C-alpha cells in the first residue's frame, strides 16, 4: 500500500547543530507534496540503503519535506550518504508514513525528547499549534549540540522545559509524570535507552500502557522483503521476485497472472497453492493454522525464503 516512491530535489541544506544537518526536499516542479499526519516519517533511499527520518513540518499542505540527520560515523552509512548531499541533488523517498500520530482524544500531550529525538516533536508542536492542542515538551540535550532548539522555544514558549544534564532531566521527568491531568498521553523519542527509561518511569508512576507512545519507525510497513525465486510446477518455469516487487506482480510480469482484488493481503482472491517450501506469510487472510500448513499463500504480500518455493501453477 502506498508503495509509490517520490523523486525529490534537495532545495536546502543547513547545519542544525554540530553533526546534524537539516535537509529540505521538494518536488522537481516545486509543486505541493502529499500532506501527512504529525509525527510521520519518510524512508530515504540513498546509496543502496534505506533509512527512516521524521518529518519536521506540521504536515499541512507541504511544499517540502524537511528532515534532520545526525551524522553517525559508526552506523551503516545512511547518515554519511545524506550528509554528502548538496542543493540540487536528487533523492528517492517513500510517501510519508504515520507511526507516531497524536492521539485525538488526548486531554494533554506530554512530548519527551532527547537529542535528535526532537524531530518528530517539532512536527507535533507545529500541528498542535494549528489545532490548539494543549502540549508540554521536555527536551534533554547536550549544551551546544541541540538541533531545533530555537524553533522549539518559539513554538512551545513556556511549555518547553529544557534539561542539559541527566540529573536535571530525572527531576523534571518525575515532576511531570506525577502532575499531568487524567487523559494525558505521553510521547517519547530519543536513543533506545532513553526511551526505555522514560517508559519504565511512566509505568512505575502508574501510567497505563495505552497512554504511552514511543517512535517506532516503519511499524506499519511490511517492507520490500528479500529477493527469491519460485518454480511453477505445471508450466515448469522459474520466476524471479526481486526485493520491492510482490510475487503477484512478478507472476503478472511472467504472463502467469492470478485473479486478485485488494493486493493487500486481506481479500483472499489471489490465493495460490504451494507444493513445496515455506512461504513467509504476511497476509491477514489465512488463519494461523493455514499458515502453519504452508499449503497455500497470498501472493500479493507473502514471499518466499531463498529459492525453495514451488507453486501449483
Amino acid at each position: 500500500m502506498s508503495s509509490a516512491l517520490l523523486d525529490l530535489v534537495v532545495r536546502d541544506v543547513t547545519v542544525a547543530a554540530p553533526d546534524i544537518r537539516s535537509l529540505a526536499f521538494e518536488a522537481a516542479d516545486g509543486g505541493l507534496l502529499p500532506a501527512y499526519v504529525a509525527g510521520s516519517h519518510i524512508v530515504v533511499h540513498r546509496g543502496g540503503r534505506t533509512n527512516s527520518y521524521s518529518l519536521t513540518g506540521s504536515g499541512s499542505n507541504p511544499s517540502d519535506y524537511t528532515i534532520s540527520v545526525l551524522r553517525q560515523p559508526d552506523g551503516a552509512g545512511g547518515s554519511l550518504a545524506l550528509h554528502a548531499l548538496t542543493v540540487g541533488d536528487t533523492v528517492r523517498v517513500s510517501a510519508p508514513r504515520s507511526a507516531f500520530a497524536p492521539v485525538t482524544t488526548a486531554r494533554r500531550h506530554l512530548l519527551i525528547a532527547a537529542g535528535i529525538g526532537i524531530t518528530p516533536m517539532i512536527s507535533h508542536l507545529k500541528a498542535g499549534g494549528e489545532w490548539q492542542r494543549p502540549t508540554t515538551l521536555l527536551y534533554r540535550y547536550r549544551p551546544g549540540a541541540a538541533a531545533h532548539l530555537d524553533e522549539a522555544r518559539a513554538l512551545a514558549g513556556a511549555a518547553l522545559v529544557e534539561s542539559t544534564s541527566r540529573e536535571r532531566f530525572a527531576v523534571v521527568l518525575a515532576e511531570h509524570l506525577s502532575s499531568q491531568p487524567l487523559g494525558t498521553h505521553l510521547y517519547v523519542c530519543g536513543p533506545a535507552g532513553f526511551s526505555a527509561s522514560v517508559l519504565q518511569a511512566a509505568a512505575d508512576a502508574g501510567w497505563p500502557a495505552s497512554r504511552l507512545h514511543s517512535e517506532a519507525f516503519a511499524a506499519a510497513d511490511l517492507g520490500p522483503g528479500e529477493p527469491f525465486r519460485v518454480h511453477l510446477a505445471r508450466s515448469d518455469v522459474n520466476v524471479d521476485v526481486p526485493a520491492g516487487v510482490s510475487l503477484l506482480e512478478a507472476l503478472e510480469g511472467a504472463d502467469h497472472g492470478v485473479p486478485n482484488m485488494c493486493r493487500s493481503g486481506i481479500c483472499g482472491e489471489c490465493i495460490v497453492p504451494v507444493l513445496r517450501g515455506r512461504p513467509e506469510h504476511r497476509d491477514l487472510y489465512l488463519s494461523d493454522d493455514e499458515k502453519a500448513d504452508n499449503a497455500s499463500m497470498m501472493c500479493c504480500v507473502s514471499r518466499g525464503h531463498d529459492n525453495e518455493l514451488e507453486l501449483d501453477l
Partner: protein
Amino acid sequence: MTPAPFTDTAPPRATAFGDGIVERARHLPFPFSSDSYRYSANVEPAPGRVDTDAGHWGENIIDIDGDYRSDLAERAEILARDPSRCQALSHMRTAVWDVIETLLPIMATDYPEVMAFQRDGLHCSWRNDLLGLQLDFVIGDDSSLGMDPLVFIGGQVQDDIALLDARDGALWLDAGLVTFAADWCLGFDVGMRFTEIHGPVPRVHEERIVSRAEQFLLRLQPGDKFRRTNWTMTVDRRLDTSTDSYPEWGADRRLVLLDPTLPDRLHLRVEVQHLIRLPRTGAVLFLVRSYLVSLTELATVPAWRQRLGQVLAELPPDMAEYKGIDRYRAAASAWLLGT
C-alpha cells in the same frame, strides 16, 4: 460516450442505444460476480473503471450523477427534520476538516467543468456550479463556512459520510453524516468500536471477516484509497431506510407482496463504499454511495435479471433475514426468473 451526468433525470427512460437498457443501469455498480452471494472482504484499490453488462462505473471516487441535486435536497430535508443524523464527537473536528481538504480537490480534478478548488496556505476557494456556490473559507475556521463543517461537506457529495478514529489498536465510529442508511442509524452507532458496530451481522465473525477488515483498515497509510460494494433491497425509490424512520417504511416490506406493481416498487440497492485513510489525521473516511434500481429497470439487462434471480433464490435464510428481504425475496426471484 459519456452520458450527460449533470442534468436532473426524469423517471428512467430507455436510451437511444436501442438495446432497451435504462439509463440508471448504465452506471450501476452491479455487485454480483456469480449466482451465489456470501460475505467476503471484497476490497479493491480505488478508483478504477469496471465494465459491466450494461456499461461501466468506478472511474471517480466521488460519483456525481443526474440525481445530484435531488439527493442533496433530500439530505437537507432529512437533516432539518432530524439533526441527529449528523454527529461528531469533539475530538473529530480536525478529521472533519481533513475530509474537506481531501475531497474538494478530488472533485475539482474530476469535474473541472463545474467545480474548482484553489488553496493558498489555509485560505481556500471553492466553486460548485451545480449548486450555484462560490465560497471562500479558511481551513480550521468553522465560522468561515457559515455552517457546521460536516454539514457543509455532506452538502457537496451524494455519499453518506462516516469517520473512524484509530486509537488503542482499534477503529471507532466517532463522527458521521448519514441520511441514507439502509437499516441502521448513526445515532445508535456513534462512539462504538468497529467490531461492535458489526456485531449483529451473521456469519462474518466465525469467518473472521470483521477482525481482518479492521486490521486491514488500521494498516492503511494516509492517502490510501480502497472500495468495496455491498447490497440489499428497498421498497420504492427511498434512500432513507434508516432505523430512525422505520415507522415510515417498515410495513411496506410486507404490503408490497400484495401489490401487482411489485417489480416497479422493489429496488436492488447497491452501495459503493470508499475507504480512505485521511492524510492529516490518519482517520479512516468511510463514504457510502447508494444506488437504487427497480427490478423492472434491472430486467432491461438480461444477464442481471438472471443473476439477481439466482442470487435471491440461493441466499441462505439468515442472510436474507439480516438484510430485511426475507418476506419478499422469493417473489422477487420468481418474477426475475419468470417462474
